[in-house]
């Protein structure tokens, strides 16, 4: 009974967090993620930035259940993603930087398949799939197989697949890579709308301008650790600059970090 109360309290406490990561560690040949703590609030647009090899993708792959951490915990809306991965996955979607879709399926079939995997009512998913593909400019290609699609089109299909089951948490790894300006605007608009509707978005990006303009909070990761976090104003304040761009802040943070480590 005591144990149950504790569990319930734990769930209650973390209900405000879409993602709560504690002591997350992963080692390959070297330490990729080093006892990372990270909290993302529900309904927040969070950008994770960092230099190449900093551990951004590894962190998010562990959160999405694609990699097993060596140590630490991951909670998605209070659900322990390591002990109950199915329940955690039901609430989130993962979009890789390299769009992985089936060449021999049409976008519509792909979305219906994804909806089937998440157990969505076909009548609902059909309508939502159609709307999503139309909003991403893929309507003329609904019934064409994906094998001839450009990278940008494939990325849009993958993104639509991530959104079709109405996830509460969307995790995206470099979602704008390979997209033209119009497509990028479509995607940014779509993600913005989702956040306004109460969805939580976490994304990694190399385009600091995107993080600066779109994210509510920004986390800077270097050598597998979170070296700074906050809104742009908070980051500026933490570093004693009042009128600095994110790019300058980023360079200052990731340059200092190796020496500090």
């Amino acid at each position, binding site marked *: 009974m005591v144990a149950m109360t504790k569990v319930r309290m734990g769930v209650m406490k973390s209900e405000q967090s879409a993602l709560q990561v504690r002591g997350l560690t992963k080692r390959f040949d070297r330490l990729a993620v080093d006892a990372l703590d990270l909290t993302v609030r529900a309904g927040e647009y969070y950008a994770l930035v960092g230099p190449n090899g900093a551990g951004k993708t590894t962190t998010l792959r562990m959160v999405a259940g694609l990699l097993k951490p060596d140590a630490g915990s991951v909670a998605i809306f209070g659900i322990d993603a390591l002990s109950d991965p199915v329940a955690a996955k039901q609430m989130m979607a993962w979009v890789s930087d390299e769009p*992985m879709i089936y060449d021999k399926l049409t976008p519509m079939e792909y979305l219906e398949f994804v909806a*089937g995997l998440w157990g969505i009512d076909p009548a609902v998913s059909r309508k939502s799939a159609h709307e999503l593909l139309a909003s991403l400019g893929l309507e003329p290609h609904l019934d064409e197989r994906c094998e001839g699609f450009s990278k940008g089109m494939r990325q849009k299909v993958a993104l639509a697949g991530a959104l079709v089951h109405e996830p509460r948490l969307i995790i995206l790894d470099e979602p704008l890579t390979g997209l033209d300006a119009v497509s990028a605007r479509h995607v940014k608009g779509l993600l913005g709308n989702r956040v306004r509707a109460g969805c939580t978005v976490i994304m990694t990006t190399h385009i600091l301008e995107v993080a600066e303009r779109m994210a509510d909070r920004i986390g800077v990761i270097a050598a597998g650790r979170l070296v700074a976090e906050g809104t742009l104003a908070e980051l500026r304040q933490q570093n004693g600059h009042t009128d600095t761009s994110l790019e300058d802040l980023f360079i200052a943070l990731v340059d200092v970090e190796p020496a500090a480590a």
Partner: protein
Amino acid sequence: MSSALALTWFARHELRLAWREWLAMMTGGRRKRKRAAVIGLVVFAAFLHIPAWAVIGRFADLQLPLDKSSLIVITATILLAWALMLSQAIESVTRVFYARADLDLIMSSPVRLANVFSIRIAAIALSITVMALLLSTPFVDVLAIGGGVRWLSAFGVVIAIGLTAAALAIAATIVLFRLIGPARTRLVAQILAAIIGAGFVIALQVAAILSYGTLSRFAVLTSDAAAAIAPGIDSIVWWPARAALGDGEALLLLLSFGLVLLGAVMAIFSGRFADTAVSASAQAGSGRQGTRAKAFLGGSRQQALRRKEFVLLRRDPWLISQTLMQLLYLVPPALLLWRSFADSSQAIVLITPVVVMAAGQLAGGLAWLTISGEDAADLVATAPLPASRVIRAKIEVVLIAIGVVFAPLVLALGFASPSQAAATAIGVVVGAASATSIQLWFRAQAKRSQFRRRQTSSRLATFAEAFSSIGWAATAALALAVPVAAIISGVMTAGLLAATWKFSPRQG
């Protein structure tokens, strides 16, 4: 750079690519294994001399002039080798059109495309001929050791038929492009390659069954009827056989014919090669209208997975050609079955191992495609269902597909011999389950398009899959003839599977 120099440079580039591709195939893409691959290849080539001796050692003493039956057997053997080379060449040409990543680079470069593609055509011919020479070496060695150096001229025959096979493959593929367009050519060429590769042997077997009620091809080749309809011993038809036996004049004519044919194909088609490549890449870039599938609506999550696998399998050109080939191999035993209703031939027993073997092989390929060849691995891994249920759904797909292909044959067998049908059914299930298990133990994430190279990821899995299919085929056949021997064969095959499982990498 002068034109000749540029062509030499491009020829070197092509040879280097071909060499590295071959090496990657041998080493599984691991450069450190180069020495081990070379040693393995030498040992394998040395080992091949034993079966080569057993198969053709007795023909080493053959001398010209030969009787018609001997000429027919040798010519048929050369024709079989040529059919296999032609099949391989069609595959290579299709791959050049659809899968070579450097076509954009080459076609945007300031070189004369006709020249560059002439070299590419020559490179295809060379790689096919070299591979055929390597494979034929143990057989020619055995003949040369047993019958003298005159047999070395067989190497010349291999070169000549390699050149003609490459030339015909290129011409056929480009003609197909013109006739049916790039979209259909890929599928048709793959099916054609499968049919040509298997067709010759199957046609001989069908003739043997219809005429003599046996699966032996030699029954037809050495028959009086074949000798009666064959042309006279001076005919041009016997040139390849005479050349292989050391007739210098025939060899020279054959080589000249091969070179002239390849030269003509290069002259006629090298310009069109570029157009064809452009059409193929344009086709790859355009969306193909899919038939509207209602397959994904409704049902459980596993059903969604199973339906997805079935749709992808149905749309896979490799699988269509491979299944067609398996079905073609089943034509002779099916024919034997049909004939056995008319007489009480014991040859019907031969159906069981053929069916079991085919089921194991097809299941191995299907299992790789469904389990390892997952193009959206991240999507499936992040879906809210346990990994065990994903795997189960994929295994179900393999077993259902095997059931659909083989159940009709087993049912037909049931009318002729219920006990044999039961043994065959058990063999099919066990063979398919074993091949699927091996693919499961050695699963490694890959793209479906990498299917052609699946063997390179694990040699152990490849050999285990082949020996398991052979083992269960033998066990099923022995169960009908010598049940005690079947127990021994079954235990040995199960032991092989256990050892394979023991050595398989741990799956997370």
